Structure formats: C-alpha cells, structure tokens
C-alpha cells in the first residue's frame, strides 16, 4: 500500500515505471505500422523487386520509375492520371471548406441560440452518427438521380457536406464558450454574422481543424461516388483510378502493380501530413466530445 503512488497520467518526463508500457506499446505500434511502411517501400521498388522471389519487404534499389509510369499512364479511355488527381484535389478542397463552414454555422446556432426544435434537431443529428452510407446506398442512388446530380461533378460534393460527427463535435466545443462573451458583443451592437466571424470562428479553431481532418479523410479516400454515381471517366477521382490499377482483369497486372503501389503512397501521404500538423488541435476537440 505504502509503495503505491498511483498512476502518473500525462507525466513530464521518462521514469523507470513507464518501461512496461513501452514494452507493450512499441512492438504493437511496430506491428500496426508495418503495412504503412510497406506501402512506402513498395512504391519505390523496381519491377524485378516487386515480383522478386522470395518477396522482400524492404526496397534495395529504390527508383522513381513507378511514379513516372503513373504520371505518363493513361487508361483505356484516354484519360490521363493528372485529370483524376486534379478532380480529387478540387473536390476535396470544396468539400472540406464547405463542410467546415456549414457545420460551424449550424453548431453555433444549436449551441448558443434559443428556438423551438433546437433540442430535437441536435438529437436527430446525434442519431445520425449511426448512419451507415452503405445501408442506404440504393435510395441514395435513386435520390441523386432524382435531383439531377447523377453523372455530374456535384455528385462528388453535395452528398458529403452534411457530416453528423462534425456538427456534433463542433457543437460540443462551442458549448464551452461562455455566453457572457457573446452577450457582451451583442450589447456592443455586433450582428450575429459578426459574432460568428470574429468571436466564434477564432475560438473554435481546434474543432474546425478536427472537422477538416475528418472530412478530408472521408472525401480524399472516397472511391464510391465515382463507382456508383458517375459514368463520365473525366469526372472520376484519383481514389477510383487507384482501384482500377491493380485489377487483375485488365490484363496489365505486372505494370499495374508498380503504379498501384505508387498511387497508394500518393493516397496515403496527404492524410498523414495533415493529421500530423493538426493533431494537437484534434486532441483538444476530442476532450469535449461527450455525448450529452
């Protein structure tokens, strides 16, 4: 009893008692990182190493050939890789910006305004956290057809804008901003729009960063829209293009493998970089992610 000093949550520096955690965490993290490291090495392997026997994990003679092939490659219908990448970037930027804006707007009102249906609206949103897009793929398809979005650029953007998790997190975060701050601004004669732009936005930056990451991951990795809602090859995304590279039925598996590996790396790296830059803000937001 006397020897037990309790957990040292969030310690400042290394202590011998932490060794046991490292002993467990480091092997596990290495195991989890393996496929990721593999993606990185694989992308730089020359063709003979990609198909080497016995297979090698690490690359021995790294080359950029896979990337060069990928850039020069056009698919069967003559659409170059850059077109897919361009589509992906435009769609991603649009979705992330709009999602952040509309979720923050709705979050502000749901947190700080009084009106009828407020509670109900937020409750429906919380229920929608459980929404699984795959479960309603068919009615969604019919609906997108019905509103005329089928086979358009907008089909990539509109269906992803409402992100229940995003609204949920930002509303919880805004709940902590003291009401007095907003009241003071109102007394000074600031309009709602001004309060939103000059008080709310600067104060909820962590939550904004979090939504940005989550929606980025969702839209950047999304190949489904291109598969289900878009026929025009010119309007499809990089995530979709990637899924076609290593498909066995195209008969081009040997050349495809290297390009698929390079494409996988291009898919993964932006996720990683953005998360690395913004991770401390994410943690800040998550601390307030309680369901109330």
């Amino acid at each position, binding site marked *: 009893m006397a020897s037990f000093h309790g957990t040292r949550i969030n310690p400042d520096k290394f202590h011998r008692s932490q060794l046991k955690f490292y002993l467990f*965490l480091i092997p*596990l993290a290495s195991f989890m990182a393996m496929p990721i490291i593999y993606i990185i090495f694989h992308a730089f392997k020359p063709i003979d190493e990609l198909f080497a026997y016995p297979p090698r994990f690490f690359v021995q003679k790294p080359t950029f050939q896979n990337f060069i092939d990928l850039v020069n490659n056009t698919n069967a219908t003559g659409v170059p890789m850059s077109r897919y990448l361009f589509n992906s970037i435009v769609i991603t930027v649009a979705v992330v910006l709009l999602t952040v804006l509309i979720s923050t707007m709705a979050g502000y009102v749901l947190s700080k305004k009084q009106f009828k249906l407020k509670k109900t609206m937020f409750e429906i949103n919380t229920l929608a956290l459980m929404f*699984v897009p795959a*479960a309603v793929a068919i009615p*969604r398809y019919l609906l997108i057809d019905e509103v005329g979005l089928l086979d358009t650029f907008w089909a990539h953007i509109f269906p992803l804008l409402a992100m229940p998790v995003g609204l949920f997190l930002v509303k919880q975060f805004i709940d902590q901003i003291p009401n007095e701050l907003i009241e003071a601004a109102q007394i000074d004669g600031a309009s*709602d729009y001004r309060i939103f732009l000059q008080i709310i936005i600067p104060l909820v930056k962590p939550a904004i960063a979090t939504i940005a990451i989550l929606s980025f991951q969702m839209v950047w990795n999304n190949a489904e829209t291109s598969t289900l809602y878009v026929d025009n090859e010119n309007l499809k995304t990089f995530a979709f293009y990637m*899924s076609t590279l290593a498909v066995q039925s195209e008969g081009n598996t040997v050349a495809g493998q290297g390009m698929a590996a390079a494409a996988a790396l291009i898919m993964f790296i932006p996720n990683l970089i953005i*998360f690395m830059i913004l991770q401390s803000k994410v943690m800040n937001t998550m601390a307030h992610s309680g369901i109330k």
Partner: protein
Amino acid sequence: MANNKQHLSTTVFLAPYYIMFFTFIILPVAAAVALSFTYFNAIEMPTFIGLANYVNVITQDGVFMRYVLPNTLTFAFIVGPGGYILSFLLAWMLAQISKVPRTILALIIYSPSMTAGIAMAVVWKIIFSGDQVGYLNNMLITLGVILEPIQFLQSPEHLMTIMILVTLWGSMGVGFLAMLSGVLNINKEIYEAGYIDGISNRFQEIIYITIPSMKPQMLFGAVMAVVGTFQAGAIGVELSGANPTPQYSGQLMVNHLEDFGFIRYEMGYAAAISVLLLLFIYLFSKIAWRLFGEKD
C-alpha cells in the same frame, strides 16, 4: 425588430447544414423504409407488397440465415468489443508516457484508420496472397510450418479470420482519439481523492476513477465502434475480390445488400436488408448508451 433579425440569422446559419442533412441522410433513410415494403427492380415502378420482403428475409433466404446473419454477428461481437477494449487499453497506456513519444506512438496507432480501404486491400492482398510469393505463405514455407501455399483469401476457413484481423488493425479511429484525450483530461485531484479513499492498485483505479471520469468519451467511442463494425462490411469483398465471397464465408450484411441491390437489382429486397442493418446499429448503440450513458 431585433428579434426578427435574430430569427433570420438563426435560419441562415442552420439552413445549409440541415438542407444537406435532410436531403442526403434523412430522405434516403425514409426512402429505404418505404422501398422495403415494395417489389422494385429499378426499371418498373415499385409495387407495394407489404411485409413480404421482411418475411422472405427471415423465412426464405437461406443464405441470409445460414451465412450472412451468423457472419455479421460473429464479426460484430469480436471486432466491436475487441476494437473498443483495445482502443481503451492503448489510450490508457499512451496516457502513462510522456508527451513526445506518446504523440509519435499515437500517430502510428491511428494511421491505419486514415488509409482508404482500397489502398489497404492492395497491401493485405499481397501479404495474404495465395501463391508462394505471398508474404505470409513465403514466411511459413521458409520456416517449415507448411509445405504448400495456403489460399488464404479464397478459402472459407481463413477469410473471416483475416477480415477480423484487418478490421481490428484499422479500428483505432475517432473513438480512440476521443478516449486518449479523455484519459489525459481527467482532473488529477480526483485521483488524489481516490487514494485517500483507499484505492490500492491500478485496476481499482481504472474501474473506480478513470472510466467513470471519462464516460462521455467512452460512450462516443462505443457508438463509433458500433458504426465502424457494421461499416467495415466491404472488407471481405475487397480482400477476396468477389461478391459473394467464396462460399459466403465472409458475407456480411453490407455485402448481401449490395449483392441483391446492385447485382440482382432486387432493390425492394435490398432496402429491407438495409433497414434491418440500420436497426441492428441502432440496437447495439442503445446497448452502448445503457452501459455508458449518463443516468438520468
């Protein structure tokens, strides 16, 4: 007058989100419920057939009862609680070490959930590839454990295990991040009070202090785990490269739904399955709510 302005801005702020929310989330769910009572082949107009689809799912659909439902439940009961407990344990352990190594390790552990299913399927396919060039096969042959390569992704015995493994590996997502910051943000004074009240080991500490103090994050993590589990359905098809999966061994509700909806065009029937899927998720989330929700 000022009041009117307030109402106007409230509407302006809410409208964009809720218009999108209503159109692309609420309406499809409502439409799925409506379609589930019809026969609809995507060409002719839907015809109302009452509960027939549901009755068929339960009484006529041998595949659903023999494979899909047991598979889904097995998968959900292992991956759901497994991933959940794993994320809590990892979050708790990460909270015990200092900031810089914690950030690095947390990033590594979170990174699998950032990657697209497709990118991952490419990697796992190579690792579990059925010929001797597959990494796992090659390793086992070299070690002398097996003599002939195993068809990991095509054999009914192994597919489910691999699906569970891959999904668990990628399950440290948003819920994990929430739990990690939950553990880190517990007030230290609560612990001190606990020691005075006679808590004498780490296990008691976790049960009596840590978990109760981060209930909201635990609940959020639980809901995300439930959704993640049922959403992960596509992994079997991606790994084996076929829908239906070999001998239905990895067939989950999502795959069954796609099989009927997009391959056989029995949209009404597929809609009934999707309604069942949403009910499942709702049911399991309710259980999570019971376990971790605030007692009113």
